[in-house]
């Protein structure tokens, strides 16, 4: 009985959070046109959310690409099909690894920063101060950060993929000796723009919306204490990771 009740409350909590973040998303969308009129605020956030994540994304992309090159080469060489290495690397990155790994890294790097920043603003009464100055903090603080996250994610995924392909090339062609023309020409003929590239972009957009929404939502409604902000930051990482993986399955099932 106790276990059932526990499960009931977990489901209830989950649905409550889903509903609350859905309503919060509607509020963000409502203020988006106004926010777009002040692009400077968004650009500043694209810098701190997106550009500041670049090194992490590029280094991770390089290693993922290198691992793909190595693993792919080892497996493909058993079937004498190493010329397909480029296709394997690019498809893995475009369809799955690029959007998913970037979103997970983004949640860890930028999502936590957003949550703790907004949470601390509430804890230090900066948000209340803004309300007292008749400025809606959702419009002024949250929406530019949300839009910056949504804009940054596809760009970061693009960079992650590009560097990843480079990593695969370095290991596959330069280290393992796969034929350079086979590597590129296979990619050219086997990667479809709509099915592979566009679907990756759609995934990255959805992940960008989900991870940034979770980050700003948790920050805005964080308990205004040190413990509250730290809990909210943890929830951002955990919920973002779960949301990205669950959405990835759903999107993959629909698109491929």
């Amino acid at each position, binding site marked *: 009985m106790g276990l059932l009740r526990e499960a009931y409350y977990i489901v209830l909590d989950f649905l409550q959070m889903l509903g609350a973040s859905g309503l919060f998303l509607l509020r963000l969308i409502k203020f988006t046109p106004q926010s777009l009129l002040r692009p400077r605020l968004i650009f500043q956030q694209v810098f701190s959310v997106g550009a500041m994540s670049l090194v992490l994304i590029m280094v991770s992309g390089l290693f993922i690409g290198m691992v793909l090159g190595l693993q792919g080469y080892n497996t493909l060489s058993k079937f004498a099909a190493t010329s397909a290495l480029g296709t394997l690397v690019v498809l893995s990155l475009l369809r799955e690894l690029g959007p998913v790994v970037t979103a997970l890294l983004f949640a860890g790097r930028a999502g936590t920063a957003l949550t703790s920043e907004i949470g601390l603003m509430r804890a*230090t009464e*900066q948000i209340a101060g803004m309300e*007292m*100055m*008749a*400025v*809606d903090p959702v419009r002024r603080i949250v929406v530019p950060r949300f839009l910056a996250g949504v804009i940054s994610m596809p760009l970061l995924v693009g960079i992650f993929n590009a560097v990843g392909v480079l990593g695969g090339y370095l290991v596959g062609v330069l280290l393992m000796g796969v034929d350079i023309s086979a590597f590129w020409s296979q990619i050219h003929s086997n990667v479809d723009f709509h099915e592979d590239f566009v679907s990756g972009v759609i995934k990255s957009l959805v992940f960008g919306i989900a991870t940034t929404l979770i980050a700003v939502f948790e920050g805005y409604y964080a308990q205004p204490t040190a413990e509250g902000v730290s809990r909210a930051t943890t929830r951002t990482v955990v919920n973002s990771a779960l949301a990205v993986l669950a959405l990835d399955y759903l999107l993959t099932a629909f698109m491929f």
Partner: protein
Amino acid sequence: MAASGQQKNESENVIEITGLKYRRGEKLIFDRLNITIPRGKITAIMGPSGTGKTTLLRIMTGQVLPDRGRVIVEGRNMARLDGDELYELRKSMGFLFQNGALFTDYNVFENVAFPLREHTKLQERLIHHVVLMKLQAVGLRGAWDMMPGEMSGGMARRVALARAIALDPKIIFYDEPFTGLDPISMGVIVRLIRVLNDTLGLTSVIVSHDVAEVSSVSDQSYLISNGKVVARGTPEELEHNKSAWVRQFLQGLADGPVPFHYPGPDYASQLFGEESV
């Protein structure tokens, strides 16, 4: 109509609170509280910690809605205002938070410029002038490029004060403005509250428990305890008040009507008996 509206707005009292009831959880914070804030005066609201003084300020500014009672600010019933109307009314209010609530990623200049940039279409040159004038009024023009993290508590509060008066409000609320300040900073804030009130024609509401400082600056004071107004009057009138509670509070006595000990079970029975901690 416009003339009568104007007359209504310029009534004698800026804020009228009648029959205010507010409950937080099980605890009754305010029990049929009545308070009026006269125009152009400095009104202090004093009381021991935990009596809900800050909550009262939040109710006056519409940050918190009471359970019962009427809160009329500038002739407007706070309970009937929608979000936009409340924001419109707040443009005529300044609020000094206890910790200043400055934006930590903006410097002093940008903090004071913030409300101007948000609510006016002033040119950059004019904003520059207005911000420097406000900073000059609080004596911190020279600190325009400092970051909030580099400043002492007293300086941060003065910058917050400059920001609170940036839009030339009619009413200004001070939440514990003297807490945690050294004597010089305290003297500066006391002087600023008086000077700003008189030169800008403001109405000021101070919430505090620093009796000496408040008495030196306020025109009238309310003492509240257990959700009710215990005494009101000018500082001189309060000084001659005969109530034991008022005497205990104003003179800072450890024991009196407000007991030294928080209510609890019998001491001996908790130490040795079955009452456990």
